[in-house]
C-alpha cells in the first residue's frame, strides 16, 4: 500500500508559495477545507488565484484569506454574502472571474480526467462566452471551455484512510470529488483518518490515487450559513 498520510496541515501544505493557483472544495461554508485555509493564513502566502464556487463569508472560509489580502484573483460562480469581497472587487483590488457553476465543476473534472477542453451550452450568447470559440452541434450552440490548471487542490472529506481513499458526507461532497486530482498536488483533510482496511472499498467515493497527501483536521467549526428550521408547535 502507498501511504499518503502526513502529520498535520503544516506538512500537508509544504511547497505552497506566492502567486500559485489553488482549488478549494466546498459550497458556501459546507465541506470547505478549514484546516488548509487556516494554514494558508498562517503562512501568509499572497497574490493567490483561488478557484472555489464561493468566496466564504467575511470572517470564515476564504473570507479569512481575503481579509489578509492574500488573494489576487478569485474564480467563482457566486460571490454574494461577503462585504469585504464586494469592496475589494468594486475597488479593483481583487480580480474576479465569474463562471457558470456547472462549467466551473466541469473545468475541474476535465483537469482531473486529462481532458484539455470541452464544449458546453452554458453561457452561450452572454458575456461569459466573449472571446471564446463557439460551435454548433445538432442545431445548438456551444462554448469551448478549457480545463483549469492549478498547483494545489485542497479538499475536505468526512472519512479517509492512510491510502488516501475518501468518503464524503451529505451535500458537503459538492466540488471536493471533482477537484481531487485536478491540481499538481491534492491535499485532502478529513474529520476521521482511519487505517487502511477500515473503509469498505465498495463505499469509496474518491480512490487514493487522486490524493497526494492526507491528514486529519484538528477541529472543525462547520459553521452554518443559513440556519433554517421548522419549529415544533
Amino acid at each position: 500500500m502507498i501511504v499518503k498520510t502526513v502529520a498535520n496541515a503544516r506538512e500537508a501544505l509544504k511547497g505552497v508559495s506566492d502567486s500559485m493557483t489553488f482549488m478549494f472544495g466546498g459550497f458556501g461554508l459546507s465541506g470547505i477545507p478549514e484546516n488548509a485555509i487556516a494554514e494558508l493564513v498562517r503562512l501568509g502566502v499572497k497574490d493567490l488565484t483561488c478557484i472555489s464556487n464561493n468566496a466564504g463569508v467575511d470572517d470564515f472560509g476564504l473570507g479569512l484569506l481575503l481579509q489578509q489580502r492574500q488573494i489576487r484573483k478569485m474564480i467563482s460562480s457566486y460571490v454574494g454574502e461577503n462585504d469585504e469581497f464586494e469592496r475589494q472587487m468594486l475597488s479593483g483590488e481583487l480580480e474576479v472571474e465569474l463562471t457558470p457553476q456547472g462549467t466551473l465543476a466541469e473545468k475541474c473534472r476535465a483537469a482531473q480526467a486529462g481532458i484539455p477542453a470541452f464544449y458546453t451550452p452554458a453561457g452561450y450568447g452572454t458575456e461569459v462566452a466573449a472571446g471564446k470559440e463557439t460551435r454548433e452541434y445538432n442545431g445548438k450552440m456551444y462554448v469551448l471551455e478549457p480545463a483549469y490548471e492549478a498547483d494545489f487542490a485542497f479538499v475536505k472529506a468526512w472519512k479517509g484512510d492512510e491510502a488516501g481513499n475518501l468518503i464524503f458526507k451529505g451535500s458537503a461532497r459538492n466540488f471536493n470529488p471533482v477537484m481531487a486530482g485536478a491540481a499538481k498536488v491534492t491535499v485532502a483533510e478529513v474529520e476521521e483518518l482511519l487505517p487502511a482496511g477500515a473503509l469498505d472499498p465498495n463505499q469509496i467515493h474518491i480512490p487514493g490515487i487522486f490524493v497526494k497527501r492526507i491528514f486529519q483536521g484538528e477541529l472543525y467549526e462547520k459553521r452554518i450559513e443559513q440556519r433554517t428550521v421548522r419549529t415544533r408547535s
Partner: protein
Amino acid sequence: MLDKNGIARRIAREVKDGYYVNLGIGIPTLVANFVRDDIEVEFQSENGVLGMGPFPWEGEEDPDIINAGKQTITTLPGASFFDSSMSFAMIRGQHVDLTILGAMEVAENGDIANWKIPGKMVKGMGGAMDLVASAENIIVAMMHTNKAGASKLLERCTLPLTGVGCVKKIVTNLAVLEVGPEGFILLERAPGVSVAEIKAATAGRLHIPDEVPEMDL
C-alpha cells in the same frame, strides 16, 4: 393581484407527477409548499441533492446537509447525494424535467437576465446559466414590474444576459404568459387584474387572445 405565495401556488400547478424539479432561490423555493400531495415529485438542488425535504426540526440542523441557498434542509426517503459535476450532468443532460427560476428581466424572444447589474450588484450566476442553457422546460417566477414600477417584460433585455431564447413561460403577480414567435402571449389573468392593467405593465410586444381567463388557483 398575486403575492409571492400566490405566484408560487400558480406555478405549482405546472408541476406534474413524476417530475424532477430544480427550484431557484426566492419565489421558486416557495413552489415546493404548494405541490399537490397526491403526486410524486423530487426536488434537485444543484449543490448535490436529489430528494430534498423540508427544513429540519429545531436542533436537528446538519451543516453537511444544505440546499443551493445554503439553508439547512432534510432529505426524503429515496434521496441521494452526488458531486457538483454529476449534478450538472443531470441539468445539462436534460434529466431534470422542470426548472423554475427568478429573473430581473425577460425579453419577448425568451432571453433572460438575472445575475448582474453592472456597477451595482455582482453576485454571480451560480448555476443559472447552466440551467437556462439546457432545460427544455423553464418557468420564470417574478413580479411583473420592478420596485421603480418599470416593466420587467421587455422587447430586449437591457441587463447582461443569463441565456438566450430559453424562457417558455412566465408567471407574475399579474399574469401567466408564454413566449411565442411574435412576443409574449397572454394566457391568464391574476384574480382581479384586467387585461388593460397587464398591457400597461408589459413593455414587450403582447399578443392578447380574445378570451383571457382568470387563473384557477
